[in-house]
């Protein structure tokens, strides 16, 4: 059998056991203001539109409703996990193009502008990829400095699938010219609350 043959060969050929290195050296204590500043500048570099409403007193639902009608006036179809515009449960992406994806991320990562989503938020995994535009919300208290802290906070096998998204989809496969909107979303807006 292939499995036992492969394992036998590895057993025979592998070097003596080497210990794992210590990862505790990668702790980063960054003041919150600086974290948010970093997160915004990296996200912007990744071609996301970033809006911070940390100090706003307007209720989120009200703010978003207005924001969407102002910034996405042409959007008519929604995949809306926050249920501001519509109920997402029955959207069939193969049949209908969907204009806007709306969801709140579990976690944000300052060093790469990434936002974390899993099955419990997405419901349909393809949603955040197949929608034309994405609108992502992140609570500023859930932003961590680096990927080390992200993996301490997130249990990657908690649901069947999770993804870190760091902006709209991109490619530079034609002569290294950056084009935003390859296979996934064409634009991303991140709102920090």
């Amino acid at each position, binding site marked *: 059998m*292939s499995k036992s*043959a*492969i394992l036998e*060969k*590895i057993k*025979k*050929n*592998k*070097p*003596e*056991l*080497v*210990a*794992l*290195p210590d*990862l505790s*050296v*990668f702790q980063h204590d960054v003041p919150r203001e600086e974290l948010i500043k970093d997160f915004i500048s*990296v996200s912007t570099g*990744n071609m996301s539109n970033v809006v911070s409403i940390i100090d706003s007193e307007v209720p989120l639902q009200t703010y978003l409703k207005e924001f969407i009608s102002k910034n996405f006036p042409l959007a008519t179809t929604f995949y809306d996990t926050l249920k501001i515009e519509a109920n997402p449960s029955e959207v069939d992406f*193969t049949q209908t193009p969907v204009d806007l994806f709306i969801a709140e991320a579990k976690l944000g*990562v300052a060093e790469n*502008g*990434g936002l974390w989503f899993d099955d419990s938020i997405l419901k*349909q*995994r*393809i949603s955040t*990829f197949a929608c034309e535009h994405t609108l992502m919300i992140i609570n500023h208290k859930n932003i961590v400095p*680096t*990927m*080390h802290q*992200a*993996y*301490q906070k997130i*249990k*990657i*096998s908690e*649901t*069947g*699938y*999770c*993804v*870190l*998204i*760091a902006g709209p*989809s*991109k*490619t*530079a*496969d*034609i*002569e*290294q*010219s950056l*084009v935003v*909107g*390859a*296979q*996934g*979303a064409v634009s991303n807006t991140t709102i920090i609350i």
Partner: protein
Amino acid sequence: MSQHSKRADNFIKDEARTDWHDKALWHVREKRDASAEQLPEWELLRETASQIKDNVLSNLDNYLVQFETEAKKNGVIVHWAEDAADHNRIIGEILEKHNARKIVKSKSMLTEECKLNDFLEERDIEIIDTDLGERIIQLRKEPPSHVVLPAIHIKKEEVGELFHQKLGTEKDNSDPTYLTKAARTHLRNKFFEADAAITGVNFGIAETGGVVICTNEGNADMGCHSAPVQIHCMGIEKLLPKAEHLGVFIRLLARSATGQPSTIYTSHYHQPRPGAEMHVVIVDNGRSTHLGKEDFRNSLKCIRCGACMNTCPIYRRSGGHSYHSTIPGPIGAILSPNKNLKEYSDLPFASTLCGSCSNVCPVKIDIHEQLYKWRQEIYKNNELPKSKTIPLKITTKVFENPSVYNSLGKIARGSLRNLPGFMIYNNFNAWGKQRDLPDAPKEGFKQWYKKNRNE
């Protein structure tokens, strides 16, 4: 001339194009530098990544068993393939069981290595590469010339003409945005029609039985979340012990590859979505044998970032296709001889041994040292071409005999100064091609030293 030299010779015929290729890759290298310099802990990250991989290689059998156990608990179907034929047969069987005729694939150097596309096409199964660069070269019927920038050797005008013919875009329109949008529309339909999706794997996690895939376009996700069957092909060396180790590798991968702080999408797959099926094919294909070679096992640490290619003065000026192997560049030149020493015996010589590749490698593979060691192996196995063995023999004789050495030095200096051009720049002098030899000094070092020693 060796295969590599012949192909490189062809590549550099167009001087302007060679310069363009060289500069495009150097630009990527510069982006990598800028990105790495922003992290004070960069060198510590590289060292840590290298040590994690040392641990993985030293405990690989146990990690693989753990991975399989955990994956099975998650409802994932795990397969083991000893070689490329095994790998293709397993995938063929999965597809047959589901009567899958239309397949979307996201970039995978492993399926390239196994020649999966040819295997499936022979069975009348449509397989579409969905990464834009991969799709371009698939339509051109070419192999990738780089591990992360597969179409780096192609000009936008050529892509414009290709898409005009194959996808019906406007003639003479080579605007990258226009062409990318056309590909997006073309591929969207392919995703939604697909019966199965195949991907490579960046990292497998032993502790959780999941696989991690990094893309900028989102093509792996579009495929896996559309098709009823998802298949992930993973080389045995891709494992990491725990999720926490991903932190180190995700931080290094995209920064080393393109200078981005991370890829746009870092996707972690543990279970199929409801009603769908998820398979992982664990592939050996020579890796377990490679593991037994002490001098060369470090190269199994490779995470396929391509940094060694972007920095290599030979790769930049000879193009990925000159390496005639699935993985080109410096890392390809040390991986390929493990598979077939005879066929790839020219590749370890496609280097100046400058060491730049080792300096940028995120997992600290001693690439240039392995290149040198492969040269010894190739000599021991009598795989050196006559164009190298004969000059080596002559040189040995010369070095053994000081008076011959001294007089030859004098003759060489005199000849370089006085002989007419055609006597110096001809087929017998490979060093005189595409370059001017330096002006020869009137005296050699020995004479200079004798004269100046007492002053």
